[in-house]
């Protein structure tokens, strides 16, 4: 037989899940993509899928933002180290095209990591 207490506990559990889910959502919403080029810093929301094109010293760097992640997909540099970095998934991760002087960073309010070592 279901008692009032069981229902209360179930409701509390649902409330907790909703509250935590809302919190996680708000954290991912806080993530922003910082793109620095030619002394300018542009910011883009990480939850909004888009392709960003910026001009560097050698030419155009193309950056893809998708599902809260970001990566460099095209760059005029030769070694393509910025492309090889792949997706930046964690707040605090960054990559750069040094020859083209373009940097990309994923930032958040409370990043899991303050810096990435590689």
């Amino acid at each position, binding site marked *: 037989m279901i008692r009032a207490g069981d229902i209360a506990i179930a409701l509390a559990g649902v409330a907790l899940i909703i*509250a935590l889910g809302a919190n996680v959502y708000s954290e991912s919403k806080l993530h922003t993509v910082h793109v620095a080029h030619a002394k300018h810093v542009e910011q883009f929301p990480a939850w909004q899928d888009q392709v960003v094109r910026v001009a560097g010293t050698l030419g155009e760097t193309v950056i893809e933002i998708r599902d809260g992640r970001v990566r460099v997909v095209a760059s005029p540099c030769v070694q393509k180290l910025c492309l090889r970095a*792949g997706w930046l998934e*964690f707040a605090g991760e960054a990559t750069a095209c*040094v020859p083209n002087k373009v940097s990309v960073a994923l930032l958040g309010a*409370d990043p899991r990591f*303050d*810096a990435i*070592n*590689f």
Partner: protein
Amino acid sequence: MQNGRWLGRTLQVLVLALGVALLAACRSSDSQAERHSFFALGTLVEISVHSPPKDIAAILRETEALLLEEENRWRAFGQGELAHINRRLSAGHPVAFSEPLRDGIQRAGEISTRSGYRFNPAIGELVRLWGFHEEARAEVPPPDTGSIAALLPAPRLDALHLHDDGLWRSEDERLWLDMGAFAKGLAVDRAVSFLRERGVRNAIVNAGGDLKAIGRHGDRAWRVGVRNPRASGILAAIEMNDQESVFTSGDYERQFEWQGMRYHHILDPATGQPARGIVSVTVIHRDAALADAAATALFVAGPGAWRKIAGNLGVDKAMIVRDDGEIRMTENMQPRVTFENASVNAKVQALSP
């Protein structure tokens, strides 16, 4: 009575849930670090500062200028103080070192000797032969064995001698100083010292993935993620102590492929070829310059000798990822790393084999 008791319990549970939710929400209101990024030392430098002093903007501008000065000092090719000295030494001329250059080269020489010359900052000609001195390496094949053999045995810093006239001469015209595996650490050490002198108590200086921390991020330690050398994502997490640095050397950084074979930039001075057997080495040490050089030395030493060289260099916290995917680390490294994947096969080994 019965209904009243259940109502009371319901309220208790709801209050508890609300409390937990509020606690979880507090995570996102944690105070943030200020970040400042710029290009220096041939890479992206990011400085994160927590609880900064009022004049932090000016301090960071000065730190940037300091690191650009270091870059210009230690650049081995093209324009710069060391590049100019290299050209003169190579042409058989005597040279005078500025004090920072002389001190740095002498320290690098000591580390080189203790590493059994696995870290060798005198092999700039080999680096040039492979094309790794350029940001944009041309699409050309690896050098032929004859060209490599002409640069072996590799020159060492021992070939530099101070003469009575106060000038330095090289007895080996193939000597070309390339401090690539040392100067970044030296520059990071200098930047951190400068920040501390100027009253910065909590910061991370991150130069292209190699970094040093000061203090803490508020009420917690600075958290660093070590990137997985063979897959996307993070291999392990490290919580930093005050004035500790983490340096990693990996074969995935500067590299090229030719006819299906991958060639990376960490050259073994004994063979003139990219070192094989290890894909990444991570070193924790208070001395960033030593951590920088040690990461290269252990990489070159390979799976058989890395512990011996770590012991010789006074490095007690090191982790290697072998080319078969196996992970090995020193006893003092183990408590410092938390692997992202619990099934990672990491074995602890004593420092001296």
